[in-house]
């Protein structure tokens, strides 16, 4: 006889509803799962069988076929286990078919009949649609983020009991309220000196301008980058959901009791593979680091050590804000709207052109060739970071502004950007930029001089305008761009010789 249970499967960062159909008939005993299951999904057969037996249910020796519809979708992972087990029980007459109505079952089974959490509960529950999700007890908090009506159970027998009405539905774990204050992000006030670097961080945060930091080791590049996420305002409700969904799909959601409200920061090591960076995999299509950094900061330390192909793969997502990962059978669009912060040494030995550098000219050229021109073009802000003098480190200067002060300014600047219809000024292009950032007469003269002297390209001039506009926003100024902001933008830009090495 035929039975149907509902569930969902994950592709990229999105859940898709799946109908699990079980058919049990006379014939040679067999158990087949069809409908494009991947290996972990096909292994359900053995898990489900053992879980049913452990839970004191009957496994009938019969010809059993389980179909996962729609059949064109690849199904990965063990999240369909519970739905398969229940469909089998209905098909063998151990459970009434109508008890399953209106529910979507998302969970993995242990051989002992326990229900285990799965990766991507959040998007899977979203895919349940009109149905009421039922998840493992450990996933209850995460499911409740998007489906407050979600139910949960610890074991298969508890689930069956609750469905029959013999047992009460267990409550989800009470929401653990972690400290409600902002999480311990390092404070900008700890940075001694480095006024230009601090300003550049602020501009990057306010305008979404990508930032390249170059300098010898120990200059504080990593320390500065770590302070950037703290300058970004809290995520909006929609953004928080988007970010949490991706983290859930990657199994990277640490605190499942609430949505991610702070912009994430990801710092992949330079040995990360292309798939780990961009996302992919043959069936599952896991979100990569750039998707996990979406809404926050992607920090690439030792940019020059990343393989050139990996870096060039970032160019398209940098422009479009999404990355379309396609494989032979599946494809997925993953979000990739991140603020790119990169740090690199000026040369392999790290000393740079102003110290006793031991690199040969060829070594330096090879090192710098990794950074393709088009990629360097994407960085609106360039910064040379070298260790501040001892007097600054020892705190003989007054401490700078704290993260909270700067974050308020950044939030106000972002507010102005939203008034222009974009989330940050970097997204202003062509016509919209012309309208939003008219030039004063002096500012126009400055840019014209630079263009005439060949120190600036037209594209570079547009980027200068966007950065100058962000500076105006931070200072709360209206009206056409003034010469001073344009000059500051010129002081903070990257250069083809951003690594500071001449000829």
């Amino acid at each position, binding site marked *: 006889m035929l039975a149907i249970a509902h569930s969902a499967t994950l592709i990229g960062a999105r859940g898709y509803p799946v109908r699990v159909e079980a058919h049990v008939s006379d014939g040679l005993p067999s158990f087949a799962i069809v409908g494009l299951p991947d290996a972990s999904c096909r292994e359900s057969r053995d898990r489900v069988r053992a879980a049913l037996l452990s839970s004191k249910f009957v496994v009938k020796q019969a010809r059993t076929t389980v179909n996962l519809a729609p059949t064109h979708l690849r199904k990965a992972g063990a999240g369909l286990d519970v739905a398969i087990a229940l469909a089998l029980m209905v098909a063998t007459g151990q459970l009434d078919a109508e008890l399953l109505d209106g529910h979507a079952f998302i969970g993995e089974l242990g051989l002992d009949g326990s229900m285990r959490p799965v990766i991507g509960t959040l998007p899977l529950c979203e895919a349940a649609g009109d149905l009421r999700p039922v998840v493992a007890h450990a996933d209850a908090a995460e499911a409740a983020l998007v489906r407050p009506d979600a139910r949960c159970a610890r074991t298969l027998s508890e689930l069956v009991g609750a469905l029959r009405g013999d047992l009460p539905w267990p409550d989800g774990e009470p929401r653990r309220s972690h400290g409600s204050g902002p999480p311990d992000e390092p404070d900008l006030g700890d940075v001694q*000196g*480095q*006024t*230009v*670097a601090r*300003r550049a961080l602020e501009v990057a945060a306010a305008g979404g301008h990508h930032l390249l930091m*170059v300098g010898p080791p120990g200059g504080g590049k990593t320390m500065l980058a770590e302070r950037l996420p703290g300058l970004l305002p809290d995520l909006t409700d929609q953004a928080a959901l988007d970010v949490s969904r991706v983290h859930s799909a990657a199994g990277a959601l640490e605190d499942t009791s609430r949505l991610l409200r702070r912009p994430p920061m990801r710092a992949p090591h330079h040995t990360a593979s292309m798939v780990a960076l961009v996302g992919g995999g043959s069936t599952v299509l896991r979100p990569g680091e750039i998707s996990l950094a979406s809404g926050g900061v992607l920090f690439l330390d030792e940019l020059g050590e990343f393989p050139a192909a990996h870096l060039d793969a970032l160019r398209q997502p940098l422009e479009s804000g999404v990355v379309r990962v396609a494989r032979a059978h599946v494809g997925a669009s993953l979000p990739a709207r991140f603020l790119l912060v990169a740090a690199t040494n000026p040369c392999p030995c790290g000393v740079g*052109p*102003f110290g*006793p*550098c031991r690199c*040969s*000219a*060829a070594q330096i*050229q090879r090192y710098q060739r990794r950074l393709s021109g088009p990629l360097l073009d994407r960085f609106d802000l*360039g*910064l*040379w*970071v*070298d260790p*501040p*003098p001892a007097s*600054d480190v020892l705190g003989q200067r007054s401490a700078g502004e704290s993260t909270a002060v700067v974050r308020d300014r950044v939030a106000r600047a972002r507010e102005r950007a939203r008034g222009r219809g974009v989330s940050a000024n970097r997204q202003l292009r062509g016509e919209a930029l012309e309208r939003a950032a008219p030039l004063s007469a002096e500012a126009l003269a*400055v840019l014209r*001089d*630079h263009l*005439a*002297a060949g*120190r600036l390209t037209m594209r570079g001039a547009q980027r200068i305008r966007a950065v100058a506009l962000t500076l105006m926003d931070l200072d709360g100024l209206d009206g056409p761009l003034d*010469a*001073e*902001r344009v*000059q*500051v933008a*010129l*002081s*903070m*830009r*990257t*250069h083809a*010789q*951003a690594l*500071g*090495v*001449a*000829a």
Partner: protein
Amino acid sequence: MTPPRRLSPTPDGPDADPDDRSVPLEAYLGALATLDGMGSASLRTLLSLGSPSEVWERICRGSVDARLRNALAPVARDASGGWAAQARSVDPVALWTRWRSRGIGVVSIGSPSYPACLLDDLDPPVLLFHRGDLDALAHPRVAVIGTRRATGYGRRVAHELGLDLASAGVCVVSGLALGIDAAAHNGAVAASDRALGSTVETHVDPSVSGPTQAGPVAVVGGGVDAPGPSTNAALARRVVDVGAVLSEAPPGTRPAPWRFPVRNRILAALAPVVVVVESAERGGSMLTVEQAQLRDRTVLAVPGPVDSPASAGTNALISEGALVCRGADDVVSALGLSLEGVANSPVANRPEPDGDAASVLAVLGFTPVSIESLSRDLDLDLGRLSVALGRLEALGWAERRGPFVERVARSDGGPRR
């Protein structure tokens, strides 16, 4: 850029050449030079057999006797077994026509366009391939040489020397290698760019400007069609545009190691003054210096930090009595010229800045400094500092390169920094 002049080959082919008889001579010489392992000395030895065309015939026939073969340089002797087969597959006249159509000229020691300055050399090259304009050699010539593994200091000094010397009408001769060579040529090429209506020179009083700047000359170890390492390809094209690239090796030759010392002797022969910017105690630059000393050339060395390996050779030269080079002025006086009235110096009539810009300029040296450290040292906020830097840029005193600032002009009479 520069239209081909009298000495440059025309694409019309050999038939259009009025001096019809010289064509086959250089064609056969050129073809001989393409044989494996053929260098200047071996070529000269072979020419003792007769005219180039006769020598070519004999090689094609394979009838070069063993005694002569033993007199050849070792590289050539080893390769000479394959010469006959190689020569039979080459048509000298077609080869010559192809070179000329690609803008590559060939001059031999007898021809009128052969550089006069090489004629009375100890070991003049029998044959020179060239692209660009050999007239560049008519200017006073200075060789600027140094190590490939140059430091930032060396590259800066070489660039400045190239720029200042070329602006002063001196032909900068170098080898188009990485490091010092490239920096010197970049400087010399930049001088030509400036002279071609650049905005930087708007403050120069036209009545003061001296003779036109001189184009650089590169002497390379490989073929003139692809001289130097590939990273210098763009620079090589610019050198051809404003000056000339010379080589003893036929086009298409990849520079074998033995060709560099041979090339160095031409560098020393061309230039009455040789400036070593940076060199280790042993190295190609020191070989050039030896060649220069054989020819009684004036050798100058740029002093460097005593603990820098890249300056060990130059510092040793100074202790042995080489002249000290502190800048283009020293080189020009070594040439016996005066920079006064010759120099197309970029300082003339540049307005002095005031206010913040003046205090920024006061601390700016010719070494690039980061904007961060300027802001720290001067205690200026980024806004005021940026405006001051913009003012200095507009006046042509300094230039921002990404996060760095570099001074690009010096004050009148002030000490060099």
